[in-house]
């Protein structure tokens, strides 16, 4: 597609439930990032994929959070046993990787997760 797409746009769930959030990056982009944005804050990094593998997962807050990218394109962020504090907008971004140079990250519209 022309841009990064994310589904669903909104997700309301109950505390303790499991949720999956999907990201479809720009075609051909090998790098994919997940960020989380809480109200009044800037995005905070969660995890970065280069191809199929997680190159940096240092931002995942705990083991309830997990992400996969099995074919190096679409990625799914999975949250187990959701807590009210997980409520936020989850952003996905993708970029191409020109060696170690700077890379522009293109962001999707986000998934607004509300945990009741």
């Amino acid at each position, binding site marked *: 597609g022309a841009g990064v797409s994310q589904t669903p746009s909104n997700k309301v769930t109950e505390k303790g439930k499991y949720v999956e959030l999907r990201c479809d990056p720009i075609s051909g982009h090998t790098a994919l990032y997940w960020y989380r944005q809480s109200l009044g804050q*800037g995005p905070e990094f969660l995890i*970065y994929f280069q191809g199929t593998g997680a190159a*940096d997962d*240092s*931002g995942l807050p705990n083991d309830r959070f997990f992400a996969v990218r099995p074919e190096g394109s679409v990625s799914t962020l999975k949250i187990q046993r959701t807590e009210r504090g997980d409520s936020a907008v989850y952003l996905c971004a993708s970029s191409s990787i020109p060696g*170690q140079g700077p890379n522009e*990250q293109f*962001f999707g519209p986000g998934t607004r997760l509300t945990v009741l």
Partner: protein
Amino acid sequence: AQSVSQHNHHVILSEAASLELGCNYSYGGTVNLFWYVQYPGQHLQLLLKYFSGDPLVKGIKGFEAEFIKSKFSFNLRKPSVQWSDTAEYFCAVNAPMDTGRRALTFGSGTRLQVQP
């Protein structure tokens, strides 16, 4: 670890006024610097980026930013704002050349409101 400070949380200007939004970062090595904008109801978009060369960077829509290494600053400027510039502005940094990490660290954002 890097951190980014945006000291102006909410700025209100009249149309045609000049704009300067502050951004300071904490990392002492080689950095890439970015300004992203989020218009109401839209996703994050890149305004401009700096990675090397001329410290005065020009971006889209008449925005520019100046990298001052000695001050660890990357302030965003526009000589004459328009009502359509009403948005939230985020400064971000990464340092992949030094750290190998491509994740962006964002500031908390500045909400700009331009009154007609």
